[in-house]
């Protein structure tokens, strides 16, 4: 498989108060299309920062990020927003649905950024909800749904615009085992049947088993052997 993403010589640090915290120092990584990677590691190891960089939600201090052969680290703010809308789906630990919108409206949100006609949008929303098995709940608001259901809506929202890359930050961190396994099963399905490339940050070794491979991150460095494998 060709590489979907290449990170080359990434430096990234944050200032917290007066302190300067280095996260990555010359990080290199490439991710083939169709991969499903679980990223594990202690708090502060740089997992979330990695997701932000991969998803264009944050920029490296140094180094380049290529997606599908094109650099994204030097895109302008608005270009980057458009790129995210087209290419990346985000799934968060606490779902982050809009409480004022129904499940279907939440799913439709990313389609506002496309030029799809209304009918096509409705089809796509229905399809995405079907994929996550929530067609029945389309009209419900987030607070009327269980945690697992909310996360399914979030997944539907992440895939509705048909992005190549899904980024998941502790997607099952707030769920019980059985529900978590269902969610992870859905992610696995998306990876296997729809060919989505998935990067999933998790603390949960059982969750990581659903991925094709697991990478361990510590103090901004991957385990070199895992990375090479």
């Amino acid at each position, binding site marked *: 498989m060709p590489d979907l993403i290449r990170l080359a010589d990434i430096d990234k640090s944050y200032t917290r108060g007066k302190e300067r915290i280095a996260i990555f120092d010359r990080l290199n990584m490439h991710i083939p299309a169709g991969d499903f990677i679980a990223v594990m590691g202690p708090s502060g190891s740089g997992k979330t920062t990695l997701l932000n960089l991969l998803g264009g*939600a*944050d920029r490296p201090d140094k180094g380049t990020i290529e997606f599908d052969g094109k650099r994204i680290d030097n895109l302008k*703010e608005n270009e980057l927003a*458009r790129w995210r809308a087209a290419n990346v789906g985000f799934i968060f630990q606490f779902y982050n649905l809009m409480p004022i919108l129904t499940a279907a409206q939440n799913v439709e*949100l990313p389609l*506002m*950024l496309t030029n799809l006609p209304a009918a096509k949008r409705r089809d796509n929303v229905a399809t995405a909800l079907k994929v996550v098995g929530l067609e029945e709940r389309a009209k419900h608001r987030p607070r009327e749904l269980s945690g697992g259901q909310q996360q399914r809506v979030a997944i539907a929202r992440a895939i509705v615009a048909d992005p190549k890359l899904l980024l998941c930050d502790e997607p099952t961190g707030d769920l019980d085992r059985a529900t978590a396994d269902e969610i992870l099963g859905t992610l696995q399905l998306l990876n296997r049947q729809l060919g989505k490339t998935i990067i999933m940050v998790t603390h949960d070794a059982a969750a990581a088993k659903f991925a094709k491979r697991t990478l361990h991150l510590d103090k901004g460095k991957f385990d070199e052997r895992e990375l090479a494998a």
Partner: protein
Amino acid sequence: MNELFLVRKNLFRKPVRTVLLLVSILIAFLIYAFMTSLVTSMSDFNTKPTRLITLSKINFTETLPIAHYDKISRMEGVAVATHMNWFGGYYQDPVKGFMPVFAVDPETYFEVYKEDLPLSEEVKAAFFKERTAMLAAEPVARRWGWKVGQKVPLNSNIFTQADGSRVWDFTLVGTIPTPPGSSQTGSVLIHYDYFNETIDIGRDRIGWIPFLSTSAEANDKVIAAIDQRFANSADETRTNDEATFNKSFAAQLGNLALVLALVVGAAFIAILLIVGTTMTLAIRERTKEFGVMKTLGFSSGSILRMVLGESLLLAFLGAALGVLLAVGLLAAAGSMPGAPPLHLATPVLWQSALMAAGLGLVTGVLPALAAYRLSIVDALSRK
């Protein structure tokens, strides 16, 4: 679903809060629209640049000899002049039934105030013909239930008839429509000749001499010529154009414009503070959502638009409700005993729109900029 849909949804996310904000905005616009219309309808009548008024230099309550009218009529630069007297009229009750009744010279009065007297030829003829004829502004006739053709007894609180009676009988021959700005708002017209023959004191004297000049450019010359002509006589005059006269008349009540500005200013400062701080809080509560939306690919510009859209929508909704309520209250107040008919002053409409836009922008700009500048990383790490 589009941005406007989201704006609407967001605005009513906490309905109690939004309704309370709408109430406070509504109040400010109500005060503004109501008070402005009130002041306008008391002072802002249709004026005509060529319409001038001559009155006693001592005060407008002092009268002038009728000879002044004849002299002014024949002066150069005067197209047509008329004269009117204050009758001190009331119907039944001296306080509740008080009304501005003017004794006029019918034919010339209709020439000088042509625009404000859009009456049919029949009504005009009826008024000109009969000495005891009377015309009443529509709202006055409606309020007292007078029908055309009916005899109406009017009292004077100043004059007495030769027989000691203070009641005059008039026949209502027609009503005068009073669109906003009409100089005839609330007035009742009777014949000078009839008035002059029946009063006990002050015969052959007149109150004011309104007249039309041949052109507005000639005004200054005409004014100077008239006032000079009567200078050093027992009845000196002061001549003004109509707008100046109206303005100084309204100024007698006090500095209405200043009071209006102070009250409206206070109301708007109050809502600016309330709406501004609440919007800031409302937007700050949604920081994380904005982060999520940006992550989904919404541009900072579109977030800015939506936040500003929300504060603008709020301001416009509140303004519209306030102006609507003002229209209702003006109608109600205008139909109360003794009140002149009141209308919404037309400039209030576009001024309110402008003020709503200003309010929406001012209260929304800081939260909108904060949302615009928000970085995804900061927003998502917020609890």
